[in-house]
């Protein structure tokens, strides 16, 4: 998967036609093999743009910052990114008319070890669902499968599972990098920073990490698109996807196979209901 050339062409054309002010894409990192985001504002920077199977990050995250607000933006989105973009559009965080979306029909990106990333192996929608222009051939919706880690962990005993997570919450340093890297965490002021939450929460303790991560994952339940920006940003390398994938599984299995961001105007599983929702867990 190497669409560098196409993307550079499209970006130059967009700048030439004055359709955009900013182009958000990837560029090669000077220090290592990884790619980092680049906000191209002048046509001269277009040759820096690159797109390969190392273009891992979800760029829609950059739509929530001031740089791009009320500007005309060109952006590259893979399947999962486009679902996040769908969520942002639905939740009125970006205006569709301000965007020029280049949808990638993704074949999966690589992890640090150079293997296909886990979320790509389990990806349900590799094709971009929102786009103005499409690159690559669509491969269609895939079968949903429960995350292997979630499955493995769920098979363990309660105590063992508890100990596993205890370690996670102990290792969390409450740096909030996960929140900052998440495209869907755009709140003006996060709830865990609010007065009433801070008051009873303390700072860098397992219990505050527990509270923060639980609340965060529940706020993303039914909205998370499994792009794993959070996990890549986490300095403690915590397996944050476990929480999201667990919620996704529960929602998929119980609420009409709901998956986040697949359709426009779908606000997520918590913002609608069905008479047929499971009721047997309630006395």
């Amino acid at each position, binding site marked *: 998967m190497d669409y560098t050339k196409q993307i550079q062409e499209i970006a130059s054309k967009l700048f030439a036609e004055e359709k955009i002010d900013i182009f958000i894409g990837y560029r090669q990192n000077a220090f290592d093999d990884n790619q980092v985001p680049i906000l191209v504002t002048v046509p001269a920077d277009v040759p820096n743009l690159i797109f390969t199977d190392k273009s891992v990050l979800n760029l829609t995250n950059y739509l929530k910052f001031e740089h791009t607000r009320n500007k005309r933006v060109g952006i590259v989105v893979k399947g999962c990114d486009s679902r996040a973009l769908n969520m942002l559009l639905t939740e009125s965080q970006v205006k569709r008319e301000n965007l020029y979306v280049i949808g990638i029909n993704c074949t999966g990106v690589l992890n640090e070890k150079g293997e296909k990333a886990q979320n790509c192996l389990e990806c349900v929608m590799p094709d971009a669902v929102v786009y103005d222009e499409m690159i690559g051939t669509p491969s269609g919706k895939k079968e949903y499968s429960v995350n292997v880690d*979630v499955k493995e*962990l*769920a*098979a*363990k*005993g*309660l*105590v063992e*599972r*508890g*100990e*596993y*997570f*205890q370690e996670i*919450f102990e290792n969390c340093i409450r740096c909030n990098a996960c929140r900052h890297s998440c495209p869907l965490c755009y709140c003006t002021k996060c*709830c865990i920073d609010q007065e009433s*939450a801070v008051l*009873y929460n*303390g700072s860098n*303790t*397992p*219990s505050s990490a*527990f*509270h923060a991560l*639980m*609340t965060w*994952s*529940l706020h993303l*339940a*039914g909205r998370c698109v499994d792009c794993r920006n959070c996990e890549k940003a986490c300095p403690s390398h915590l397996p944050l996807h*476990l*929480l999201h994938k*667990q*919620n996704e599984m*529960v*929602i998929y299995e*119980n*609420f009409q196979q709901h998956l986040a961001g697949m359709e426009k105007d779908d606000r997520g*599983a*918590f*913002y609608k*209901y*069905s*008479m047929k*929702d*499971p*009721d047997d*867990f*309630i*006395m």
Partner: protein
Amino acid sequence: METEVKETKGQVVSAENPGIVAPADWQPVIMGILCNWCSYAGSDLTGTSRIQYPPNIRIIRVPCSSRVDPWFIIKSLQTSADGVLISGCHPGDCHYISGNYYARRRFLVTKKLLNFVGYHENRIQFSWVSAAEGPKFAKVVAKVTEDIKKLGPLHKYKKENLK
């Protein structure tokens, strides 16, 4: 998969932390969050009918089960509660038309998530109790209390630095 609740003589072992034991007469604290129009009214009826139930529950009144933020559940478990009971109107009977339908979805996901990270399922329980179901409310409280007594004290992620 749930671990078996251990039967021990004279002591209660915490289901989540087998190292922690409590004396046999240990009494759990249960946080009850009830909707104003059905379950709170139902619990009042339990009172007026003088139906007895275990005294472990502490009741908070909210207008509707849809007012219950999962945060309340997490917070309750992080402070003094050993278990949570949330109760609302039966599906279709919501005073606010559809509140309990939204709530039901959140409850299921919250319950499963907490179970996933190491809480026993029975610590977080839900019920639909109508304003006429005084006896049912007593039964529900009795069952939840009994369930949680078996699970022993909860020590996970309790506030280290407050109270």
